[in-house]
């Protein structure tokens, strides 16, 4: 078991009213799963993903990640945990405009205390695997959307995470580009055993996964 959410509640207080963003979420994710989260806009998909990614807190419930109880951890431990095991992919790629492709890839490694030679090897490996060696000296603005997302996925993967969290990774891409990214996810999941949780609006994309979770008003249905 990779992670387990038990009776997770998250809310915000607004004008004396408690608005629930997540309601009683129970979810168990095994290593090697490929899960798609679906639901209408505003149903809490991103919120759930952020909670799983430990970027956001929750108000009630338990969260176990590997052997750790996330809900009892201090902020610092939590960030060490996600630093080590989780990679993020975003709808709008969130590459750093001022860095070249290979620098964008190298960036997470800088925060994980890899040596210079190791970093170079890992970046080279990624460029190779994703077939973007020729683009390594370009800036993100010089790439197409699909290529940018490719770099985004490569960046999420570079430090060998156990879990990839992708929030609408293809939301800004055309169908052909989307397909490529989904194929990539599938391969990663099947060949490398990377656990993936993605948020998507498309049934077609959801079909790549092994399981679909539906959200409605913060509740799993």
């Amino acid at each position, binding site marked *: 078991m990779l992670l387990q959410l038990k009776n997770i509640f998250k809310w915000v207080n607004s004008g004396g009213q408690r608005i629930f963003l997540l309601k009683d979420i129970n979810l168990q994710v095994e290593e090697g799963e490929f899960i798609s989260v679906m639901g209408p806009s505003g149903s809490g998909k*991103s919120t759930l993903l*952020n909670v799983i*990614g430990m*970027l*956001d807190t929750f108000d009630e419930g338990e969260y176990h990640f590997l052997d750790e109880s996330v809900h009892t951890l201090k902020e610092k431990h939590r*960030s060490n945990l*996600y*630093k080590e095991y989780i990679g*993020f992919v*975003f*709808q*709008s790629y*969130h*590459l*750093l*405009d*001022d860095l070249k492709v290979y620098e964008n890839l190298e*960036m*997470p490694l800088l*925060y*994980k205390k890899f040596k210079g030679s190791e970093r170079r090897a890992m970046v080279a490996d990624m460029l190779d695997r994703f077939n973007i060696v020729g683009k390594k000296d370009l800036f993100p603005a010089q790439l197409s959307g699909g290529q940018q997302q490719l770099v985004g996925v490569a*960046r999420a993967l570079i*430090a060998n995470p156990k879990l990839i969290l992708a*929030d*609408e990774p293809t*939301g800004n891409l055309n169908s052909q580009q989307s397909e490529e990214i989904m194929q990539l996810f599938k391969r990663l999941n099947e060949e490398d055993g990377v656990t993936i949780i993605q948020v998507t609006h498309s049934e077609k994309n959801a079909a790549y996964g092994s399981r679909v979770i539906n959200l409605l008003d913060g509740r799993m249905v």
Partner: protein
Amino acid sequence: MYTLFLKIATRYLFKNKLYSLINILGLSIGVASFVLIMLYVDHEKSYDTFEGSENVYRAYMDYQEGGKWVAGDANTYIVTGPTLKDEFPEIKDFLRFRYVNGVLLLRGNQVFEHTKGSLADPSYFKIFHSQLKQGDVTTALDEPYSIILTEALAQKVFGSEDPMGKSLKLMDSYGPIFTVTGILKEDHRNTHIKNDFLISFSTFRAWEVFEGDWERTWTQNVYYTYFSIDPNTNTALLQQKIKDFKIEALPYERHNIEPLEDIHLYSNKPYEAEANGSIQRVRFLFVIGVIIMVLSWLNYINLSTAKSLERAKETGVRKVAGAQKPQIVFQSLLESFLLNGIAILVAIGIVFIALPSFNTFIGKDLSLGISNIDQMLPIFGLVCLGSLVSGLYPAFVLSRYTPANTLKGKVNTSPVGLQVRKGLIVGQFFATIILLVGTLMVNKQILFLKDRPIGADLEQVVALHWQVLNLGSDSDSTLVQGIRAFKDELRNIPFVEKTATANTFPGGRYEDLGSSAGITFPNGTRDEKRITYNYSVSPTFFELMDFTFVAGGPFKETSRGYSNEIVMNERFVQYMGISEMDEAIGKTVRFWEQDWTIAGILKDYHHFGLKTGIEPIILRYAPSSNNILVKLDQKAMASGGMEQAMVQIEGTWKKIFPESTFNYTFLDQNFEAQYKDDKTFGTAFQIFTVLSILIASMGLFGLTSYTVVRRKKEIGVRKVNGATILQILALLNTDFVKWVGFAFAMAIPVSWYAMNQWLNGFAYKTSMSWWVFALSGFLALVIALATVSWQSFKAATQNPVESLRTE
């Protein structure tokens, strides 16, 4: 349409309160500092300017020293004026002043102390372009025993009465009576030579106190001489001719001239009419003023261009809606004027509020108002021009954005713009570090001077001075007897430890020293070229001052109270070419047509303060009626302390001389007073340094808030990818550290050079320690980091989810 523009502009300023506040505060501090400094600079530069002042020159004496000519003396001879006028047709007229020292002004029995006056030629009115409020300029200074007063003095002495034709007595040993023949018109002029009253030069021959001086044509230089020169003269040529003009009686001196307008700031000779200003100080302050002003403009440019990024979208919308480039520029300029206008108004307010304390602080009487509007116009003109220029840059930056990009919210700062802003920050820190080095060095030097032993103990020593009004017929012996009685009385006061008499003392004025041109050494050689100084003291003086003798000892006390024994300093012995101090004892030197026997050699002490080196000096044994020095014993003093003690001493004096005046000076305070200007300068430096740091920090603060906004996404991405808070802080701050480092590297040579220049004005200089520079750099860095980190920290601790939420 314009009202709409104005509406948008004001609304914008109100909406962005922090931005407006930082800008207005920065600009107004800058403008206020600039205006204050320029008022001061203008004041210093305005000395002795009046109609025709450019054609007035002052004569002074050059002395030959070691084969070279040096500016020796601001005083000239009584015949300097007439002689040069006869020789050189270019000289149209001359004017002599002779200070009337040590006299009191009396009206009936009423004494007016602290008045300063001179004998003056009738040409005074023409050459100094002065006017009389009452009286006739053609005759007022003609008749002997004529006196003219300043309006202020006339008011003080006569009140509402008409002073014309009234009598005044000047109290010396003779008490001549003068008739008021004129009242000078107050012209609020700054001048290096200040007089409360002027006496006709023709009085000179008749006045007993100057008896014999008339004949000392080339032997007594105690006169200030001014020339009015034909406007068509080649003054360089005339100056050369005057320098080449030989006076037979003065083989080792020559005349020289300098423009009247330059005296206050450029002349610093012995026997100046007053302690002059210093062009160096004026320049330093001027530069500081300009730096602060430029800093605040840079700030403004920096902030507004950074801010314009935020407004790019608005600009894009307006461009799409059909706004033309000129209109966008106009809008931006309007805002800039609005901001600058408010800032200038605030600045004027600050100046008005700060001016009184600024005046007390610099000891001047600067004003800002209608009266000096012509002085203020150029300053404010400059300020407005600067505002215009600083408003132009952001306006054009804004107008350059293309609507397509700005609408997408994609204004990637042009690399040029970024470079410019970096450059501005570097510039600000460059200036800040220079000012910091300056502040530290000025303080270091002042401390250095204060801590330096001067070779005498001035603590708890008071110099008493007085003026006796009614001594009766045999004035001299009455005075001597009285002083003796007073000294006896003093000895009975328990807290009086020691007493002595002296003409002057360490830190005393130049004009209280005697001087002699020409001295015969013990081996018979005679040096005519060098002026040497001496003063008279009583034998107890040495012990009271805690002087150290390296050979011989004090004078042997005589019943007459004087002898031909002298004591000199080591430097004098060296000057005479004697290497062993002991050898000089008992030897004879000759000056003032008299032989003097050397009784002792003093270890060198600082008579003139520490701005100049130690000069040869002689102490003579003679009675002096100028000062009684009293060393007080603090422990024996009653509970009333110093004040009480001085009251008691004054009471004792008044018992012996009921009709007299009584003043006193503390020697240590008097000695330190020579650094007053430097201290003021140091404090001014400090204040303006703090202000410019404040301005620079405000700019930095403003700028970081934009940097942080711009890098918000980047911060989020990096955090999600594992960056810690500390790493984010480092990321945001390294740039600033780099810039400060760069500024530091550039500031070192510049500040080193500038402070070296300043230190050159001192004979005793503190060292330019490396730590002064290091500390300045460090302080600048700390200030920069403190300013930046507050916002960096906020940004670094923010939850990345916030910044990464997809729009």
